[in-house]
Every structure is written in C-alpha cells, then in structure tokens.
C-alpha cells in the first residue's frame, strides 16, 4: 500500500478567517478503497479542511497532491474534474424541480434535436435511486420528499458524478436506521470499486461501522488518529474535547419548587388542517420550577406542535383543554405575548427559525430584549452590549467579536447564541425543541451543563428531544407522546433508554405503530 501514492494527500494545510485560525498545519490523506472518518467538534476545522479539498476555498496554505501530483484548484469545478465530489451538509436542492432535474441540474443529457433527453435522464435517475435504496418517481418534485429522502437524493447526485473521492458531511443526520444501513452498503460498493471516502459524522457508532481510519481535529489541528474499528467512543470524544468526559450529563438537579406549567388535555384544532403535522390530541403534563421535564416521541408524535402551541406559534388560540402558567389559565396569542408571559422557546432549526444569519452576534443575541432595555424607543447600546457579552461569555461561545456575523460561527456556537437570547429574557419556563441536534459532543456537554444551571436558578424546562440518551441523562421526568397524546410518564431515575424506546414505539415495541421509515435506534425520528 505504501508504494502507490494516496488518492489525495493534503500536507500542511492552514487557513485563517480574520482573527480565527480555522486550520493549522493539517496533514490528511485518503487512499484508494479507504473510508477515512474526520472527527471534531463544531468549529474544529473539519468543514474548512473539506472546503479546501473540494476547491471551495482557494486561498489556503500548504499543498494538495492527487495521485502524487501536486494540484491547486481554482474553484469547485476544478476539484470536480479531478474526481472530488462533496455531499454538503445543507441540502442544496431546488425544491420545485423534480428528482431527476435536480440530479442532472446543469448537465442534462441532450437528445438528438438538442433538447433535454428526459427519458434518459429519468432512466439514469431511477438507477441511481435504486443504488441508494429508495423507490421514488424521478418526476416527483423534491419538495414533496421527506428530509431523509432528500438527503439520499443528494447522495445519488454525488454518485452520478463518478467521483474518485467522495466527501460526506453528516450524511445520515436525517436518515432512518434502515436508510443508514443502505448508505453503508453504498459506501462498501464505492470502496470495493477503489474510490476513497471522507466521512464526517458526530455519531460514534457509525464511524466504527463504516470507517477504516479516523482523524480527530481540535482547534484546527490534528490531535489524534485511530484505527476506526478499535477506537472507543470515549477515546474519540476525549480527543475531540481535550478533556475526560466524566460529567457529560448534568449531575445535580434543581430543587423542584412551585408548579410553573400545567397542561390538561391539550388538543389542537386548527381551523384549516395543516398537512404533514400531528396535532396534539390530548396531552397532560406539568413542570415545576427547577425541574427539567423531557418530551419523548417519534417524528410525527406531536412534540414540536406541543411546544409551538404553548408558545403561541403556529395556530395561536385554536386549541381546547387547559394551560395554566403559575396557576393562571393562559392563552398565548403569539410569541410576543408568550414572551411577556414569561416563556422562552429555542426552536428546532436554528438556521431557519432561530437566527438572522447575516446579522451580528450582538444583534442576534439582544434581539429579544432590545425593547425591554430601551428608553423612549431608543436603543441603549451600552446595556445591550454588556448583556450580550455576558451571555456570550457565560455560554462560552467561540467568536472573534460581537460584531461577527452569526452565520460564520460553527453550528454549536450558533445554537448557543439562540440559547443566550432566550436566557436574557429571564423566563419562568424554557421550551426547547431538540436543542442539541447537529451539535457536537463538546457543545452538547456545555448545553447540558447550562440546562442544569438554569434549572437550579428556578426556571422550569420542557425539553423535547429525539435522543433518548439525552432525555434519560438530563431530565427529571420524561413524558412520552404517541400520536399526539401523552401516554406515559417516567419519574425521576425511572427512565432507561430501552424502556423509553419501548414506550415511544408503543408498549411491547410494536414497530408497526411507527410512521414508515422510522425504526428503533438510539435516536428516534430525525425531525425536519
């Protein structure tokens, strides 16, 4: 193996963004027939390194060799010609176009008359879809697909490029367990054909199952390299974070105080039905001050809809049942009203509903409180900056300055900014919808630490999550939702992941109760 040069060898790669050194002297190679995992926290430099390799970043230090010959890409098109294809983390599909149109966008096969050869395009698409294991009509618009299916279409698109090196950035984040297995088969086929794969993921069990080698980045440097099969999850996690992970989850619990939220038989009845949503149809629960209450449920169990209803988002007021806040019945008319009532909400998708990406960290962090600290409708910059700086420091957000656009932060740090905004509101009740989704181990640990801290200050927390380990590790109690109803409650210390899973799936583990495509795993339902 040592005699033939690797497919790709990156040597001494460095890249600065303003004051932040994203990559520093990184060596990284992919051999033919190898799956090389790349690990690291958000902001460790994985994406930067891969954007260098895919030709997206052109002003870097160091050198790249392909088959032993030095290259310098001037753009993504150069890299594609050299056989390097990237499956991006964010799905870049055109929603209104069909599956086939998306896969062949910009390189449509031509017919004899110069038009688009639709039949060939659809035939080819069908073949690619079979390869990634989904059965879809190639003519179906992409916007009608589930997120997982869209992710597989993106993968199919990359396969159609016949790349020799395929970069997969979190390819499974929205896939069901069965789809993940199918993807692994595809990777095995690629490997057998002599291609190289760079595999980026936060899920340790996937790395062990699919990768040959794993390289760990921290603060832009290579800090460890493992043989993937013999690597343990804690080894990898410690290398990523740089310290032992003894206290990943919260250890001390808040002292439960008075009841802050009581929900009785909540059922949402929208005037116009909302397709693709599971409306709450009878949810009863309560949250006391200092308590973290989990909401467990599959995708389509109504957990997101529950939080949105409590927060007055979605279809405010169109529900029956009873919601008591600090003992008083309330009916939030909208998020603004909910905030006034003492609620705060961290939404599921920070990029779509959490942040104004091109605005500064300061503007984003202070967004909810600018009117509270204003005088005669005028901003008070000093107070505002102090508050934002405090929040950012408390949450340990890694940033160059408060003026930095929030979109340039890593995912975990973006999530902390959304978090910080809500904490500045000093809420009585904090609603969180899958707050650690797509967030790395280190940032997760910090979010858990913070949840504990906030709870100890007397805030009630309602945490919906798709990660059962998280619910078991962090919550005092867990409410299980199924088909829009609360069906079971686990008390303090009672919940174990396996039992929780059984309850979530339907007692006795009848998998048939789950929506198609969702299978038991340590994670249930990716959410969209």
């Amino acid at each position: 193996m040592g005699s033939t040069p690797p497919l790709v060898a990156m040597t001494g790669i460095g890249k600065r963004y303003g004051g932040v050194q994203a990559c520093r002297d990184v060596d990284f190679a992919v051999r033919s027939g190898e799956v090389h995992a790349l690990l690291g926290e958000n902001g460790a430099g994985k994406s930067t390194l891969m954007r260098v390799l895919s030709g997206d970043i052109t002003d870097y230090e160091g050198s790249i060799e392909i088959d032993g010959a030095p290259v310098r890409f001037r753009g993504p098109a150069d890299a594609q010609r050299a056989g390097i294809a990237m499956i991006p983390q964010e799905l870049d599909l055109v929603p209104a176009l069909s599956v086939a149109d998306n896969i062949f966008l910009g390189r449509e096969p031509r017919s004899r008359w110069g038009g688009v050869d639709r039949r060939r395009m659809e035939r080819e698409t069908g073949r690619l879809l079979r390869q990634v294991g989904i059965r879809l009509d190639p003519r179906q618009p992409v916007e009608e697909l589930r997120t997982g299916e869209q992710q597989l279409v993106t993968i199919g698109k990359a396969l159609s490029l016949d790349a020799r090196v395929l970069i997969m950035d979190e390819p499974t984040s929205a896939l069901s367990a069965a789809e993940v297995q199918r993807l692994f088969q595809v990777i095995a086929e690629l490997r057998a054909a002599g291609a190289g794969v760079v595999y980026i993921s936060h899920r340790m069990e996937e790395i062990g199952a699919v990768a040959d080698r794993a390289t760990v980045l921290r603060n832009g440097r290579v800090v460890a390299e493992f043989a993937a099969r013999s690597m343990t999850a804690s080894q990898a996690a410690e290398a990523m974070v740089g310290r032992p992970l003894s206290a990943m989850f919260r250890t001390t619990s808040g002292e439960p105080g008075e009841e802050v939220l009581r929900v009785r038989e909540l059922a949402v009845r929208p005037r116009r039905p909302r397709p693709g949503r599971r409306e709450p149809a009878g949810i009863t629960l309560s949250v006391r001050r200092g308590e973290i209450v989990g909401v467990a449920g599959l995708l389509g169990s109504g957990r997101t809809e529950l939080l949105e209803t409590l927060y007055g988002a979605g279809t405010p007021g169109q529900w029956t049942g009873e919601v008591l806040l600090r003992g008083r019945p309330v009916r939030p008319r909208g998020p603004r009203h909910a905030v006034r009532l003492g609620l705060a909400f961290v939404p599921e998708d920070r990029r779509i509903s959490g942040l104004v990406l091109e605005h500064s960290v300061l503007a984003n962090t202070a967004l909810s409180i600018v009117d509270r600290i204003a005088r005669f409708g005028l901003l008070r910059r000093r107070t505002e900056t102090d508050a934002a700086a405090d929040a950012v420091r408390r949450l340990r957000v890694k940033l160059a300055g408060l003026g930095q656009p929030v979109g340039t932060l890593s995912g975990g740090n973006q999530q902390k900014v959304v978090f910080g905004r809500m904490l500045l509101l000093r809420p009585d009740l904090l609603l969180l919808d899958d707050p650690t989704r797509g967030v790395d181990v280190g940032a997760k640990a910090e979010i858990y630490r913070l949840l504990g801290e906030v709870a100890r200050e007397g805030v009630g927390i309602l945490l919906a999550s798709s990660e059962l380990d998280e619910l078991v590790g962090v919550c005092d109690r867990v409410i299980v939702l199924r088909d829009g109803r609360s069906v079971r409650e686990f008390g303090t210390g009672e919940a174990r992941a396996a039992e929780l899973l059984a309850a979530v799936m339907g007692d006795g583990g009848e998998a048939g109760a789950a929506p198609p495509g969702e299978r038991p795993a340590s994670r249930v339902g990716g959410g969209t």
Partner: protein
Amino acid sequence: MTQRETIQRESDGAAAPPAERRLDVVSVLFRFQSMLGLVAVFIAAVLFSPHRGAQILFLTSENLFNVVRAVAEIGIIAVGMTFVILIGGIDLSVGAVLGLAAVGSAVLMVENGMGVVPTVLLVLLIGLVFGLLQGIASARFGIQSFIVTLAGLQVARGLARIWSGGQGVAIAYGDGPGEAPVAFSLLGERTFNGLVPIPALIFVVVAAAAIAFLRVSVFARHLYAVGGNQKAARLSGVPVNRVKIAVFGISGALAALAGIVHAGQLNQGSPNDGAGYELDAIAAVVIGGTSLAGGRGSVVGTVAGALLLGVLNNVLALNNIDANIQLLIKGLVIVAAAGLQRLRPAL
C-alpha cells in the same frame, strides 16, 4: 469585565493583527461601496461638463443645488422605499400616492379654502393611512406587498382622478377665493441667500432623520430582523406585523410629503403626477446597496443612489444629449451600479 472589553476591542478591529490591515482597507472600501458609484459618476460629470470660459458649469453651486432639488422628490420617496425594501417588501404605490397628495394639496387650498398647515397635515395623514391600510392588507392577510401595492397604485390614481375631476388643478396664490395662501409658494423658492432650494432642504432633513432613526431606535433593530429572517424575528418576540404595517405607513406618508413638495414646485396638482416615480425610487435604493431580499442596506446608500441618478440626469441635460440616448445611458449606469453591489467579499 476584562473579557468584555476584549470582545469589544476585537469587534472594533483595533486589536486586529497586522496581517489583516490590507483586508480591512478592502472591507472599508466596501462599506462605502454605495458612495463609490456616486464618486465615479461625479468625476465623470466634472470631466464631461460643458464650460463657460474657465468655469465648469456642472460644478457651479447653483447647478449642484439644482441637482439636489431635482432629486428631492424621488429622494424623499426612496427613503420610505428603503424602509419597505429592508423588510423584504416593495411599495409600487408611491408614485400614485404622490399624485394623490399633489391633487389633494391643490384642491384643499384652492377649492376648499384651507390654510397651509391644515392642508399639509391632512395630506400627510391621507398618505399615512393609505400606507397603513396597504400594510394591514399585506401583513394581516398574508398577501405579497407587490400585489397589494400594485392594487394600491390603481386605487390612489383613481382617487386622484375623482378628486381632481380628471385634470390638473392649478394653484394661484393670493388672498381671494380660489387662491392658495402665498406661504405655500415657499416650496418653489430658495433660502440661505437664495441658494438652497427648499425641496432640497426638506430632502436633506428627511434623510438625516431617517438615518438617525435607523441608528438609534429599537424599531430599526426589529425592522432589520424582520427583513433578515422573519420567522426567527417572530419567535424572538418581535412584533412582526406591527413592524410591517408601520413601514408601509412611513412609505405612504413620505410619498405624500413628496407630493406636497411636487405641488409647491409646479404650482399645480395633477392626477397623473408621479407616474413611474416608484421605479426611480427603487433604482435609487438598489444602487444604494440595499438588498431586495431584505435585512441589509441603509438610507445613506439610498441618498447616494438618488444623487447618482440626479448627477447623471443633470450632466446629460447640460450636454444636451438626446432624450432617448439619455434613457439608454441611464439604464446602463443603473445596471453597472447594481453590479458593483454584487462585488462584496464573501463571508
């Protein structure tokens, strides 16, 4: 405490390492990008200006003030348009509202015998309410502002025609019946030793007020957030609908103000006044670097954009360029200026 100071210092760029100096120069240049186009057109105007003896005609103070007066109406409208575009909307009704306001000014004074102050206040109120109604239609019922204000354009024109009887209403000054108070004719005059045209002064005051407002008000922070990511703004507790409605109110009121200025300069109010002004205003906003997608831009840029168009018109007229050729050149310059906006450094 110390960390906060560090954060602030870093955000000010003072602590930036020397390696970034060059980059900083570039980013500063881009910050004043909206000015670059204006500077370029200004220099071109100086170069191509006709001379009278040794005097460059374009650069005479009288001519320069004429430029500002000529853009005053479009400029005032464009300031309001900037607010609307910042939230990702568009207001196509402003030209027609200008016409309605011009007609209203003339009719109220000439036919109803009202004084200047009540007339101005009432006309501004009409513009404000018209804008607010469009904002309500757009925000509450979720209709795109393009459609709402396209309809508003028709309605305002119709109202102006009905109110004026379908033709221009001339404004004669005097104390008798059917005559407007002389004070209104101030709008066609100059102040400061007969140098600064009143409309130019109004434009400058409106622009300055808007710039200050966007710098210091909470409303501005909400406005930018709504334009940048409406969903995130709503979930953060920003009163999204209120912001939207207010923005259309501001645009309507400013269009009415431009209509009053228009009537004062031309001494008449005609229901067809202001046709196509909305497009000039949008051009000024876009040349000024405000993103049509919302969330990014400034009134400073809009002022620069309006002045750019004014300078261009002025120098083309000074050179007696054929009107059709003028249109051609203007079109090209608008595209070039907007293209310049695309050249911003990637994040």
